[in-house]
């Protein structure tokens, strides 16, 4: 077979795939509309900022001082007053029922203790179901009462004519995402996860469908080589996936204020190597699947850990070391890192070469394995 013949064969498979895809409305929906809708919905819904934690107040002191502290603590927005109760038991009941996630217990004699300079104990009951929310609510209360204690100490020292103690003040200056908004951080990651779902599934199902329909045997008795067949099945979805990337970046910029600080060339490069790797994984899955159902389940078996261990939802640095090394094999991780680096920090090729190299090696390697598996399977 000459190269011209191979190109003809590749073109035939490409054209056939495009025809079948365009004719199947459901696949077109899955490929283009679903990622768009999901980006908009997830971008709006996923918000790591913890605020408005419903908090009930049990004020045993019933003094002006205790009322003022409760009011101020609940005024900064992290905690939201969800009611007042006369006793701790009633407050716990609110936690049990999920109507409140925190309960602030102000002890009897709080005002008198503070005035007399005696230590006072304020209790905070927390619903630890969501550890992140509990920690944030606890931190808000600790910070408030810490400041209260410090202010009281300074007032007492000044009243006694002694100088106030030296203080260390932290002044944070936030780079890249100064308002600490979740969307610019999460949208590039969401784009990566949506793309891995769409592209892996579509190629995993593609070859399995041919096997199930019996068309694969007819193709395999023709002179086409496995690699050309696989490439012909991969390229159309590379085009569709690239279109999706542009669409998602567009939506991210327009609807969620995700900046584009880096070069579009780096974005194009990462898009290409990422899609080749995810599409190849789909092909590899389809070579081990006899039916579309198996391919679908196989796809999920890969996608769930790939998404959860990508650093999109939880930081990779927080994982055990062996797991961190394992994520080097995860294309979603590299894509999300490069997207964030380029979009938010304006990174160039020099900053993300490692991720690009990993993706390129993964993509070509997996495609090679898929092709050789496919060949031996038929022999």
């Amino acid at each position, binding site marked *: *077979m000459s190269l*011209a*013949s191979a190109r*003809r*064969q590749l*073109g*035939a*498979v490409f*054209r*056939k795939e495009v*025809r*079948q895809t365009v*004719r*199947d409305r459901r696949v077109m929906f899955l490929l283009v509309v679903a990622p768009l809708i999901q980006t908009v919905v997830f971008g709006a819904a996923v918000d790591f900022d913890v605020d408005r934690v419903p908090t009930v107040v049990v004020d045993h002191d019933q003094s002006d001082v205790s009322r003022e502290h409760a009011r101020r603590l609940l005024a900064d927005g992290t905690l939201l007053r969800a009611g007042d109760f006369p006793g701790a038991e009633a407050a716990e009941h609110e936690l049990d029922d999920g109507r409140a996630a925190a309960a602030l217990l102000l002890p009897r004699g709080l005002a008198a203790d503070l005035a007399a300079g005696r230590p006072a104990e304020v209790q905070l009951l927390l619903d630890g179901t969501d550890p992140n929310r509990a920690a944030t609510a606890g931190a808000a209360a600790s910070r408030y009462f810490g400041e209260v204690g410090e202010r009281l100490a300074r007032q007492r020292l000044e009243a006694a004519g002694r100088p106030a103690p030296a203080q260390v003040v932290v002044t944070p200056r936030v780079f890249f995402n100064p308002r600490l908004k979740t969307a610019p951080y999460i949208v590039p990651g969401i784009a990566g996860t949506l793309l891995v779902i769409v592209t892996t599934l579509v190629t995993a199902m593609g070859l399995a469908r041919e096997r199930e*329909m*019996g*068309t694969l*045997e*007819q*193709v*395999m*008795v*023709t*002179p*086409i*080589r496995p690699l050309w067949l696989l490439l012909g099945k991969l390229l159309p979805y590379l085009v569709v996936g690239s279109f999706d990337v542009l669409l998602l970046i567009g939506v991210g910029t327009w609807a969620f204020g995700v900046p584009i600080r880096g070069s579009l060339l780096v974005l194009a490069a990462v898009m290409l190597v990422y899609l080749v790797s995810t599409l190849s994984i789909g092909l590899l899955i389809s070579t081990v699947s006899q039916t579309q159902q198996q391919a679908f389940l196989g796809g999920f078996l890969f996608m769930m850990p790939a998404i959860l261990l990508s650093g999109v939802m939880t930081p990779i640095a927080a994982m055990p070391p062996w797991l961190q090394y394992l994520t080097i094999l995860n294309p979603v991780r590299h894509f999300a890192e490069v997207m964030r680096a380029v979009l938010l920090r304006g990174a160039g090729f020099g900053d993300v070469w490692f991720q690009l190299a990993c993706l390129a090696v993964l993509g070509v390697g997996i495609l090679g394995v898929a092709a050789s598996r496919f060949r031996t399977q*038929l*022999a």
Partner: protein
Amino acid sequence: MAPAVPAVEARGLFRRFGAVQALAGLTFQVERGELYGLIGPDGAGKTTAIRAVAGLLDPDQGEARVLGLDPLRDPAVRERLGLMPQQYSLYRDLTVAENLQFFARLSALPRPVFRERAERLLGITRLAPFTARRADQLSGGMYKKLALACALLHQPEVLLLDEPTNGVDPVSRRELWALLHEFVEGGMAVVISTPYMDEAERCHRVGLVHHGRLLLEGAPERLLAAARVEGLPRPTFEELFIREIEGAAA
């Protein structure tokens, strides 16, 4: 051309699928210009035999040769072999013309050659008025003829047909056989499998497959003559084969 090389050769093929011994030493040989029938009941191993010859399956033991080449390891076989599988094997969401074009391109046929052959095949299969129809909207007989046309586009020297007349109306069946005889006269070697005994008589030679090997082989006329018992009317093929299969079971 080396005259000694048979078009198709199966030598002692064995193949097991789990508990099922699909092939148990199947051996047969087909010459150019010969129409050979693999006849046998369902589950006899006919499909497995054809897939082994087509290079779609690796036998546990024994070997298959097509024009002297190994169909599993020599890709050159695929340019000279045509296969029409038993089950649906064309793209049902593509039209008649698109299916033909796709398989022509996979065989790397130059465009003018494809046009001329497609026109001829559409003519003899009488599918020409239906080129824009999707394959899933063809009748059973029309679909089989399209599958045959796709298998013939590259003018193979060896054609393998797995139960091509299954589910086809009698008129289309007769047409299909007429087409096959035409090709065989042109020098093509054809291996056809069928569970229909009446079709055995249309082959030059037949092999009766049972439990993965041949029970009987020869020209239909000669087999019937040999089976004839003095004083009784000539047996039908069906009677002959049922007698052989029951004899093998006993």
